[in-house]
């Protein structure tokens, strides 16, 4: 691969930078709307039938996965190396945070010190850590 081709692969086209930002903001808005709708609609109590049919659940999951894959493919083609490395660090540290927090919480729970592990809390905290590391490396 020539230097120019490598540079083209690792660099982004500035004309598309605002498109990328707009796309990510739009994706975030759509994702928040879907999660909010699912959370509000899914108010079935334990023991009651689930609020969503299996087909509706599969539709949401497949739509989300395909949408996520499309956004990632677009992102990888458009972003530059500086942003990509910030992302790799962010995701790595976010994962390490998740991998470290969950067993510590589990151990503390089984020692009677804290309540049971709330994996959604750990998941969201890990995402915030990853975002924070990405933002720090991207904009410091």
């Amino acid at each position, binding site marked *: 691969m020539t*230097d120019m081709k*490598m*540079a083209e692969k*690792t*660099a982004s086209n*500035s004309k598309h*930078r605002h498109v990328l930002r707009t796309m990510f903001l739009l994706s975030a808005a759509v994702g928040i709307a879907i999660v909010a709708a699912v959370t509000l609609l899914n108010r079935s109590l334990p023991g009651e039938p689930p609020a969503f049919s299996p087909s509706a659940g599969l539709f949401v999951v497949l739509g989300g996965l395909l949408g996520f894959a499309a956004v990632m493919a677009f992102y990888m083609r458009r972003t530059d*190396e*500086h*942003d990509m490395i910030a992302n790799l660090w962010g995701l790595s540290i976010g994962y390490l945070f998740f991998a470290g927090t969950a067993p510590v919480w589990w151990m503390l729970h089984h020692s009677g010190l804290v309540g049971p592990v709330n994996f959604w809390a750990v998941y969201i905290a890990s995402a915030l850590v990853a975002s924070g590391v990405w933002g720090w490396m991207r904009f410091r």
Partner: protein
Amino acid sequence: MKNRLKVLRAERDWTQADLADRLDVSRQAVNAIERSKYDPSLPLAFAIARLFDMTIEEIFDDGHENG
């Protein structure tokens, strides 16, 4: 890694955004390279050298003597 990017850019009266457009990277990437917070990849270093019509060694200094 120390570099002369800021000086070379200033000599041409380019903003960071101008240089970023020419290199096809974000303005934050140019800023990070200028402040030695980020070392560019070899392809990007070559692109920078080509843009300024210089060698990589004339722009970037890794602190080691050539010899």
